[in-house]
């Protein structure tokens, strides 16, 4: 045993150091960030940020199962830290006002309050997805990208996700969701390629990823407001 400490002293000290680390790294930040409420403007019933639809929440599970987080981040660092803003990952169109300049900002803890599971990520083999719904505005283009990334980007190192789609015989009218594919990817005549439920919820999730609103946090720390009970 190290040192003149008794066994009990040794374990107490080790336990104390662990508690100190746990408190500093997790408990203290948790007390600031654990129960952030959305912002409600006075005289309005709108809250910011707004929750995503249920299918998007189901999509989180597909995002987790397929391990998207191992190549994609969902966090935009401030302009003072890294080049995320320069890469355009923090840019979103302001929906509330067509003439307003685009919103360019970092992400704040409040941006993530509605997500069941948060995927900030630690690797950027692929682009940041904080505002992916600004770059892919419709489901069809996302389906096509997931089915075969090389069509849109020949340099892509992203794997194709054929297994999120099924090829089936067209009976009657072609499906609305059927992918418009050409060349090698096109299905044989009389067949169509359609997304599975997993693909649909994953795309719903991706389409919910945009930070096209301002937060008061941009002007500095927001004083803690009494948390409203969240559904």
């Amino acid at each position, binding site marked *: 045993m190290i040192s003149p400490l008794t066994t009990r002293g040794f374990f107490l000290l080790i336990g104390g150091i662990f508690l100190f680390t746990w408190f500093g790294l997790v408990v203290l930040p948790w007390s600031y960030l*654990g129960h952030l409420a959305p912002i409600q403007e006075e005289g309005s019933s709108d809250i910011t940020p707004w929750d995503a639809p249920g299918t998007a929440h189901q999509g989180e599970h597909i995002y987790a199962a397929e391990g998207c987080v191992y190549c994609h981040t969902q966090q935009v660092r401030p302009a003072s830290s890294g080049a995320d803003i320069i890469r355009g990952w923090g840019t979103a169109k302001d929906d509330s006002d067509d003439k307003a300049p685009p919103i360019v900002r970092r992400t704040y803890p409040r941006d993530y309050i509605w997500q069941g599971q*948060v995927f900030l990520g630690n690797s950027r083999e692929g682009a940041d997805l904080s505002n992916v719904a600004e770059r892919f505005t419709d489901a069809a283009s996302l389906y096509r990208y997931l089915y075969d990334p090389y069509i849109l980007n020949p340099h892509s190192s992203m*794997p194709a*996700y054929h297994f999120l789609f099924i090829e089936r015989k067209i009976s009657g009218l072609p499906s609305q969701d059927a992918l418009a594919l050409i060349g090698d990817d096109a299905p044989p005549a009389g067949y169509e390629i359609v997304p599975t439920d997993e693909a649909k919820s994953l795309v719903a999730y991706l389409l919910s990823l945009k930070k096209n609103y301002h937060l008061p946090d941009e002007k500095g720390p927001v004083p803690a407001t009494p948390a409203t009970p969240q559904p």
Partner: protein
Amino acid sequence: MATSPPTIATQGYASTDPELAAIDSSVRWPVMACFLTAVHWMVVGTFFLVYASSLSHPQDTFPILGLFVSLSDNFSMFTYGRIWPAAIDALVYGWATTGGLGLAIWILARTSHVPVRSPATLLTAVVFWNLGIAVGLIGIFLGDSNSVEMLEFPSYAAWTLWLAYALFALWAVVTWLSRRPGHDHVAQSWLLVALFSFPWLFGGGSVLLDGKPLAGSGVVQELISAWYVHGLYTLWFAPLGLALLYYLIPKMSGLPIRYGTKTQVAFWTWIIFAPWTAVHDLVGGPFPAETVSTGLILSGLIFLPVALIGMSLVGTAFEAEKKHGSHGGIVFPFLTLSAACFVLAGIAEQILSIRSANELLRFTMFRECNLFLWLYGFFSFGLMGGIYYIVPRLLDFSWRSATLIRAHYYASLYGILLVIAMVGFGGFMQGLALENPDPQVTIDIADQNALNFHIASTLCVSLIALGSGVFALHLGWMLLNWVNIRVRANRLASEILHEPYEPEGPAAAVKKEVGA
């Protein structure tokens, strides 16, 4: 024919100290079970890693890649996002942790000078531990992963692992508590910290992040995840590996640890500062600025323990190599490399604790460099050296071929050191593009910069896989030979024992008649 009673002579590999030999034989099967399954997971994990790593290339780099890519495109099991975590988890839990448990019980029993009572308990724990890993990996392949780094195993597997671990660690601590008075060793403190931290980390991480995520907590999940991953490096792998080095380096070289009086300072400063390396994953992210700043200062202070431990262990190892010549033997260089990689890992952490360097390297391959330094560099070299040293003592039987050990050594040496260099330098090149202030530079350019390093690292990981294959086959060969010789020795023993009772001459004829 000889009629002297047979004695099963020892092969001369067991400890000559009868007390240590008794301890070794008490832990023989649990430790062997740990090592055998660990080596199995090392092979599995490294092959997964080769596959995962090769998926990041353009399709025409290698001939077999077409097959890999079409598997990945068409079957969810083979997609990168499932294979990569499966590979890392197989290595972290299957290889490193299982092997580490074997090391822990062996060192604890030996330094405490007591044989382990009822080793079947430990064996049961090892069986369930491995079951948990297998179930967890299947869970990841079937899409049950929750994508929380290093906690991807679904909760049912995590619980099995936790309980199996608790049983094992409890037994280890019981052994330590019944230690003979006066037998204290610095390795014990490191082992106790490791045995104590793992259930805390794994239990806390699993309960808070597995299964249903914490509602309304948002980014707190990522704080816990960072605490867990870096806790695993600094409070589980580091203490386990250091315990092995503090025990084996003096034992194998016959030299005392240099600067032995500084060991205490190194120990306490390490466990205070090292877990704060967690904030390296938080810089610039949506977290309180004061947490990150405090953490960077505290984690920056790990240069203290790293320097002290490096001077002690690397210093002693180099001195031993000089004293004994030819790098101190066949097995000793594994330990030297492990000690050197500990210092390198400390330097990598140190680099990440500098804010501007962290901003450059934050999202690049450099993170893999950090992981590989801990897992492959520091811990695997130590564990491999440990297995080479311990197994002959447990079985009283030698390794079959020095050439195979050398082949494994050189494959690991070049594979591991080069992969670390490749992902480290590749991360730097990738970072230069990713964080370029010129808006024209896109992420595709960063990927192009990284590409050749990805290809190089696939080749290096293949070399590691080759080495671990040699290692596994050698271990299997040794075990088969051992079983074979034991069976033959037993047969011989029974033949000799029966001989005097075998009637000869007329009596034999009588016996035959009676028998018929």
